[in-house]
């Protein structure tokens, strides 16, 4: 259909209107399946025709729609799963991994209709059943896929796939101002399912944030697990972001606020303690500022040397 090309060529508000019309025209040529109907309703809600549009949101919708419309019939179950809305954080699990029973150890107790779900995930499902049952199995399949996903992304190939997504910024940017929009990584706060939804980890400030979009708030954190982001940095140490001691200082008319400043000093003392401990083990330069300080020192030494030289000349 090529509406993405079409879409990029237009200015935001025109584009929304035009694309919407375009899609409607396209849809009228074929029957709309429930998912698509839901998508359209959702889009209608998102797009306030009198207002500016959440462009990112809309582009997300469009891309999803594009993918769906291109070939939803011949896609395998995992492909459909990955490309559905809200599942942007997932990467596709290799089929070999999924079919290796060893990798699924213990999951049969966690997942209802385990065998059917597994069949569905591996696209060998051929059971005739009513819609309710089908829905149940579909749900189990998603759960199973998520749990296997948590295991898969800690493998070499899974890490590589997630790394690609991380580099592209697929998981969003850190909202903390001092982190300068550092890319985030999805993580769980618990490895057991149904405990906590997925969170985003920033490697720069080492803290957890809630996903911006509510469609991610329903994804189980156990589908990513607590270990993944740490393993990623263990495996790719070059990617460990540079940490900084820079921070926000609350001020009133240019003056620091005593309570906050006292806490800040206390925190700094804790940091100094940590740096001292690390120095004892031979690890220096854990912060950007340490490296810069070192550079400054070298420069200063050079200057001093230069001055000495000048003195010598004068003395002669």
């Amino acid at each position, binding site marked *: 259909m090529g509406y993405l090309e079409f879409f990029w060529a237009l200015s935001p508000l025109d584009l929304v209107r035009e694309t919407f019309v375009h899609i409607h025209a396209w849809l009228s040529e074929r029957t709309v399946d429930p998912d698509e109907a839901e998508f359209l309703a959702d889009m209608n809600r998102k797009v306030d025709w009198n207002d500016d549009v959440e462009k990112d949101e809309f582009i997300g919708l469009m891309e999803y729609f594009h993918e769906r419309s291109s070939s939803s019939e011949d896609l395998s179950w995992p492909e459909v799963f990955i490309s559905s809305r809200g599942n942007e954080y997932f990467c596709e699990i290799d089929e070999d991994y999924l079919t290796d029973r060893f990798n699924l150890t213990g999951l049969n107790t966690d997942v209802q209709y385990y065998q059917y779900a597994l069949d569905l995930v591996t696209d060998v499902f051929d059971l005739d059943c009513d819609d309710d049952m089908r829905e149940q199995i579909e749900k189990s399949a998603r759960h199973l896929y998520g749990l296997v996903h948590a295991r898969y992304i800690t493998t070499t190939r899974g890490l590589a796939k997630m790394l690609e997504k991380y580099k592209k910024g697929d998981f969003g940017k850190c909202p903390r101002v*001092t982190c300068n929009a550092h890319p985030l990584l999805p993580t769980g706060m618990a490895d057991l399912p149904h405990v906590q939804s997925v969170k985003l*980890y920033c490697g720069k400030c080492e803290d957890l*944030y809630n996903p911006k979009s509510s469609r991610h708030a329903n994804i189980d954190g156990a589908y990513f697990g607590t270990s993944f982001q740490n393993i990623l940095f*263990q495996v790719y*140490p070059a990617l460990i972001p540079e940490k900084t001691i820079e921070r926000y200082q609350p001020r009133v008319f240019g003056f620091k606020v005593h309570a906050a400043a006292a*806490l800040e000093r206390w925190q*700094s003392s*804790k940091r100094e303690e*940590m740096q001292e401990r690390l120095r004892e083990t031979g690890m220096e330069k854990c912060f950007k500022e340490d490296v810069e*300080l070192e550079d400054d020192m070298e420069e200063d030494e050079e200057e001093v040397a230069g001055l000495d030289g000048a003195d010598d000349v004068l003395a002669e």
Partner: protein
Amino acid sequence: MSTSSGSPESWISSFCGLLGHEYFAEVSEDFIEDDFNLTGLQNQVPMYKEALEMILDVEPEEDEEEEEEEEEEEDEEEDEDNDVEMRDENGNSVPYRRGAERRHMKVANDITEIESSAELLYGLIHQRFITSRPGIQQMADKYELQHFGSCPRVFCNQARVLPVGCNDIPGQETVKLFCPSCLDVYTPPNSRFQSVDGAFFGTTFGCLFFMTFPEFDVSAKGDPLNLAATHPAYAAPSPTSQAATNPAAAETVKHSRSSSLTSTPVTATVNPNLPASLTPEPLPVQPSHLNGIATSNLAPGLGPGRIHEPRIYGFRVSERSKTGPRMKWLRMRPADMNELDESRRWHDSYGGTEDDVQIGGGGENGGAQVEVPSGRRKKAARSRKRGVGVMDPGAVNGGGLEAL
């Protein structure tokens, strides 16, 4: 019309009603009409007079007969008749009638220029207004209604945030959100706020707000994210327990739970500073107020149980690892709030006069000149380092006061 709130058609309310301008308060016209409040803005805003007139919806003198159609719509809503009338009667003498005149292109440049000047001027007045009594009250109402959203940080548990700027000079940075629960600033989640200047809120507002309304409980209401289910250590300590007169028991419970997995990343090293906070001894009586604010309101989103603990297969990542935690300090908060009472601690250990501080601080600093002195900050840091053993509050205070 003395205040803008009465007339929904005024420039001010239409400006505040624009998409992306949800954070703005409506500055009262009284405030703008007081010249004292506009001191110095004349030099900062081009076409100052016209911009001011636009904000106040004031018509120039020769325009008396059109008083009744004062409304200045942001979008070109005015109907055709109006346009003709406008052109016939006024020509280009009413440059801020942009709706009608933009189409006639007579003074289109002027109008857009005045429009942007008016926005700049309004923003700068807004920065001052929200630090005034009626302004801050208006923002308080918005804050209570959650107009500014909540903190994206998980451990702040949806604490409410305030819009602030990181710079008071316009054109430097966009608006940010200040979370009183972790004392940090965040980028608004919605991209439409990327076009709002941070200077229109200013650096002062965030803190002044909580100094003005110390009774606002900045901690999360309940446990909206249900963190308690994730791990017992994440259960919210009841905010009152910290400020209560005898919180020792509650504190101990909280501490014994969290000590096994959170914070205090120092288990291995011997540090005279830490055993006190590691052993589950009952904490001394906690002050209810410290350094000018209620202790329960000082960064309740930080501290033990509110710090992310990196783990691999359930095992904590060691600090000594290359990938180990380095930023925990940023989210720390003493379990015993007395540690923040710097002056008392200093007097407890020294009890001396100011001279002592200078001699002690200056002398030892001189001896510790190994690194390049690069400003006050470093000096303060070094004096702290030197006092690792007792966390020399004198030096800390000395550095702090200097910096303050």
